[in-house]
């Protein structure tokens, strides 16, 4: 992998106050228009994207039509919705009738969805302009966006570093300012870890809060869609638009989604903040430890009660995840057979149906996807099902119970999102080390609880200044509490380190 000639390390790190919420207001106030904002972003994409590889496809035609219609409706005094004036990008595993939906895989290189994902429809109905499809680890399997079939995505904070994954393109695009916000999917940390690596906010709500209709399935008991944004209030606003029951997704919760920040941030003096000992080990980069310690001290100084928490199943979470997720993936990805849609291997004389399936899948999937399908098939096969798959589902309940008992002692759990800042492209080739990136994030998916990553300040590493993320978790369906606390933590980080707070 060669270093691109264009230097985007000078990409202006955004001003955290200049977020989607502020920009939507400036369009409403008539200071600018959606179309002007879109055009300036399309120009910036032309300059920056060849180096970053954040976008696979720019939906300029449909975005221009949408932006123009939003501006016309605003001029006529109509209200096109809370996201009118905003520009939002979509991870390329979210189905859109505009453009392609490739999952960054050869398997779906030419796939055009005949329907829009529910989240896409809801964004459009709320007035958002959808600018493009972002690169990702193939079928969302990875923590670095290096398994993308269209080449690795790069981190705006260090061009030779990964943006994290699997929603790396979405995080890189938000970080580089070539979209206001983006959607990603999170199966084991796939929006939170890239947001931490790129200095953004990413919010994964409770399992079932946001419809997955039109999200290309990976691990169906783990997958959740969530926003990557510049601020907690942006993430909250997008969540409010996306959340709620959907007849097309039978797993969506019928609990009402309340406006999360209606009452503003939480007063820290009323808070019990739990710090899991297992998230504060020496596997953390010293800069991660220092920034975490700083926010703990700020919270303590503001009157919060700091509680030590034990989560002894932290490391078992990765094992549980790497049984459940591949098992579900091997089942979900069995649909790619080269028959009804997607890639089909060139026919060979005398070849039967089974050979065609196998060659199509072997040629269409990359190495990591094949690895996980094999692992999933193995743990589900006769003789191993009980030892691996069933046992993982039992450990999942133990992990859930561990969270339940932790939340008896505290209102929120606080730790780092990832043990280290963004690593170099090509640095982690061994699958196990790659999987360990997700050690602090997977258990939220396993238990289905909401979690958010907020920028926690910068870390010096080999002469580069890199962002790190703070990870907050609350009990299921307590999104309002989580977002209010996240908002408090966000302002504390900004006050302590105004330059580094946003990325």
């Amino acid at each position, binding site marked *: 992998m060669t270093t691109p000639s264009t230097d985007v390390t000078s990409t202006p790190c955004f001003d955290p106050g200049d977020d989607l919420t502020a920009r939507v207001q400036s369009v409403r106030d008539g200071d600018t228009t959606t179309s002007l904002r879109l055009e300036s972003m399309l120009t910036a994409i032309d300059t920056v994207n060849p180096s970053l590889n954040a976008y696979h496809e720019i939906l300029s035609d449909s975005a221009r039509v949408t932006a123009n219609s939003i501006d016309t409706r605003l001029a006529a005094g109509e209200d096109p919705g809370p996201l009118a004036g905003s520009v939002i990008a979509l991870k390329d595993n979210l189905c859109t009738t505009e453009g392609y939906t490739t999952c960054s895989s050869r398997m779906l290189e030419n796939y055009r969805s005949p329907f829009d994902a529910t989240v896409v429809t809801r964004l459009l109905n709320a007035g958002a302009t959808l600018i493009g499809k972002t690169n990702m680890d193939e079928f969302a399997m990875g923590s670095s966006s290096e398994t993308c079939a269209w080449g690795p995505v790069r981190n705006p904070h260090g061009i030779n570093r990964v943006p994290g994954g699997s929603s790396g393109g979405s995080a890189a695009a938000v970080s580089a300012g070539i979209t206001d916000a983006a959607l990603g999917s999170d199966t084991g940390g796939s929006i939170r870890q890239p947001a931490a690596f790129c200095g953004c906010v990413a919010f994964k709500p409770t399992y079932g809060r946001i419809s997955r209709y039109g999200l290309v399935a990976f691990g169906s008991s783990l997958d959740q869609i969530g926003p990557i944004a510049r601020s907690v209030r942006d993430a909250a606003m997008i969540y409010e638009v996306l959340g709620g029951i959907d007849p097309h997704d039978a797993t969506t919760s019928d609990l009402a989604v309340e406006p999360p920040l209606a009452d503003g941030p939480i007063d820290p003096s009323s808070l019990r903040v739990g710090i899991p000992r297992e998230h504060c080990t020496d596997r953390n980069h010293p800069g991660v430890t220092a920034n975490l310690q700083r926010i703990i001290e700020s919270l303590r100084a503001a009157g919060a009660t700091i509680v030590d928490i034990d989560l002894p199943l932290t490391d078992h979470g990765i094992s549980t995840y790497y049984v459940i997720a591949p098992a579900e993936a091997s089942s979900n990805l069995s649909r790619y057979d080269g028959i009804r849609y997607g890639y*089909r291997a060139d026919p060979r004389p005398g070849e039967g149906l089974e050979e065609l399936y196998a060659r199509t899948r072997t040629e269409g999937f990359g190495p990591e996807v094949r690895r996980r399908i094999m692992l999933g098939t193995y743990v589900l096969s006769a003789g191993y099902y009980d030892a691996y798959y069933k046992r993982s589902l039992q450990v999942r309940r133990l992990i859930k119970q561990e969270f339940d008992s932790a939340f008896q002692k505290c209102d929120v759990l606080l730790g780092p999102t990832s043990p280290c800042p963004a690593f170099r492209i090509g640095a982690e080739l061994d699958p196990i080390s790659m999987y360990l990136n997700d050690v602090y994030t997977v258990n939220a998916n396993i238990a289905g609880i909401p979690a958010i990553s907020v920028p926690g300040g910068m870390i010096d590493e080999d002469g580069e200044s890199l962002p790190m993320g703070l990870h907050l978790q609350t009990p299921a369906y307590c999104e309002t509490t989580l977002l209010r606390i996240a908002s408090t933590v966000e302002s504390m980080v900004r006050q302590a380190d105004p330059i580094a707070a946003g990325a």
Partner: protein
Amino acid sequence: MTSSNSKPQPTLEDVAKVASLSRLALDDAALDSARVDLLAILEHVANLQTLDVEGVEPMPRPQDTVNRLAEDEPGPTLDRDVLLAMAPKTEGHFIAVPKVLGEGGA
């Protein structure tokens, strides 16, 4: 820490079987490397065997959520031509596939 019977040692033959069940066509070198990967991952997840899960009910979905049931009523579906247009190969109103049955319908 792990009991001997829980220590996974998939043979090359086992891996070939898994590849076949996965509908993947791997040559010997690819099977060998898949075996190395599989061993490393199984070794890592061996810590699951150290936990006491006796009597713990498996939890297939987080929070024990269950699917909402819908009334069994017809709704709008995608048009046949839209679906056929996505298929890699079609013949008339059909998706074309290689011959499924051998000579004599065996």
